[in-house]
């Protein structure tokens, strides 16, 4: 296996994993606060469109990403208002969000289909990318990839070491107790959901500006759902989210390089791999009910209102 092929595999894996990392870490924060947001797919698509539209419109990818974050946050705000303040069913509202995001992005994106965009360019880290073998492999990615690792570090540190993270975990376990102690349960959950929205927005932006720089209706192709599954697979731990995302990235790459790797199968069957893999990892994790009982935030999906 020559170096170029290896680089291609690794690069492909990382690039495929990056949107999953953003979206799954965002959802992890929301779920650790006890909120199940099934609207990740919808938020990703709207984010993808926003980044593409603003990016092509203004020529600035940074503005594009900012727009994507804004779009994700807005949709998340809609979701949060309905489920947290108005107490609607979280599953139904999340589904509504996805369907709405699908429709909205398809509708608003009609004139962007087929337009070209100058995607994210890889950036070489000065000294490190000159290292033999490792250099071009690990230190020559686009900024969003490094950003995803940074987000992981921040999320991990905040959850484990800061008071805000402590509060979030407490709210996720028992909002009633947290409320009795005077914690701002609603605010914590709102912020967690909005963070999730922002991350989904970035994930979507990455799709339309880096992974496949273009806009196509429904281009996330289920990645939002896979991100949701990732959170479960990772038993709500940030490091495992990252590792799981790379695992999925690898599976996705398999289908692209199948021939080179000696796998001959029809392309549609290979395309099934990520989805089948998702099912399999979910079964592996969920088999033992204790795994879920020990790790799932106890209040996940349950409505809570401080006035009751």
């Amino acid at each position: 296996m020559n170096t170029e092929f290896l680089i291609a595999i690794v690069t492909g894996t990382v690039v495929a994993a990056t949107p999953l990392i953003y979206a799954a870490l965002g959802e992890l924060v929301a779920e650790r606060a006890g909120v199940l947001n099934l609207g990740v797919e919808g938020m990703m698509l709207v984010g993808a469109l926003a980044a593409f539209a603003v990016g092509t419109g203004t020529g600035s990818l940074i503005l594009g990403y900012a727009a994507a974050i804004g779009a994700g946050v807005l949709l998340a705000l809609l979701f949060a208002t309905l489920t947290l303040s108005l107490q609607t069913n979280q599953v139904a509202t999340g589904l509504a969000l996805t369907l709405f995001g699908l429709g909205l992005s398809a509708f608003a994106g009609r004139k962007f289909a087929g337009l070209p965009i100058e995607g994210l360019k890889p950036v070489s880290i000065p000294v490190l990318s000159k290292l033999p073998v490792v250099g071009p492999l690990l230190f020559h990615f686009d900024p969003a990839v490094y950003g995803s690792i940074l987000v992981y570090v921040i999320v991990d540190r905040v959850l484990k070491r800061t008071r805000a993270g402590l509060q979030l975990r407490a709210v996720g376990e028992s909002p009633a107790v947290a409320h009795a102690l005077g914690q701002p349960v609603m605010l914590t959950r709102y912020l967690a959901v909005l963070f999730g929205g922002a991350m989904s927005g970035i994930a979507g932006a990455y799709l339309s500006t880096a992974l496949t720089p273009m806009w196509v209706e429904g281009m996330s192709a289920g990645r939002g759902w896979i991100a949701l599954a990732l959170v479960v697979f990772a038993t709500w731990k940030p490091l495992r989210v990252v590792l799981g995302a790379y695992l999925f990235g690898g599976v996705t790459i398999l289908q692209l390089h199948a021939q080179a790797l000696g796998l001959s199968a029809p392309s549609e069957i290979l395309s099934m791999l990520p989805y089948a893999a998702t099912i399999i990892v979910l079964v592996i994790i969920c088999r033992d009910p204790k795994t879920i009982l020990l790790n799932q935030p106890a209040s996940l999906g349950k409505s809570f209102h401080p006035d009751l």
Partner: protein
Amino acid sequence: MRIASPLIASAAMLVTGFLIFAFLGKDPLSALYMFFIQPLDSLYGVGELVLKATPLALCALGLAVGFSANIWNIGAEGQLTLGAICGGGVALFWSGELGRLALPVILLAGVAGGAAWAAIPAVLRTRFNTSEILVSLMLVYIAQLLLAYLLHGAWRDPEGFNFPQSKAFDDAVILPLLMDGQRANISFLFMLALASLSWIFSRRSFAGYRMIVAGQAPDAAAYAGFSQRRNVWLAFLVSGGAAGLAGVCEVVGPIGRLQADISPGYGFAAIIVAFVGRLHPIGIVLAALLMSLLYLGGESVQLGLQLPAAVTGLFQGLLLFYLLAADLFIGFRLRRTPAAIKVPA
């Protein structure tokens, strides 16, 4: 009072539609007319309304069984696809041998295909505690890829110019129409039959009672000895079978063959139909007609005003959002929000 929020939600959707059309620079009133009234101004139009409402209602009636018990089958679109594949397969390869029995067997194959596909999330949930939401959803993508695979390969019409579609089915296995001059067929009658059965099930049967208890108070269901396993299986087999029936009726109905694109998202729209219809058979039928009108309207403004077909999806999403919001002000809330993973009793 339960009908108030769907009505309010529909009204809000209309108002928003008015604003959207205006924003797009089209005359809002005539756009609304083109969207909601024009599709119905002929026998053919009414037939189209019924034709599209049928698969929506079939799926939604099946889904409603599970939703009342917090069993979330999100993969109706995939089960619909499998129903089309199984029924279509029988139509392609055995319609000759089966003679008069061909159509019934095709329909049964469709139901069985959908039910079998739905059995996967059912077994994974009951035996491995896996979230049925995520599994059924993943299976949608797999089902669609399976259809594409078959149509690009073994089932492709050799005289079809390499389009991913099968040979057209024999006339003998096409569903009979309800009347000439329009396209609605006897699948509409299947849907009415299912609606009646569904009414008996949820209002009168003990099995329906068990599901409602499971949805409202899972601990009480466990206490009473109601098996959540049985509920999950029942919900998935019924909704899978209904979706499979919807799928096969599409391909031996208006489509007449197997092709890559057999459903404009009926399986997902059916989720909205189930909620807007309040999980009640009559409500679901009415909501299906409304949803069907949204599809027709979308096509109508696509042709008439050069708006994208996606406008339908937009309205659908809006409708569901408004419904959820409207529920609050009427004071009726879906009672329980389930955790992502449930441990079966």
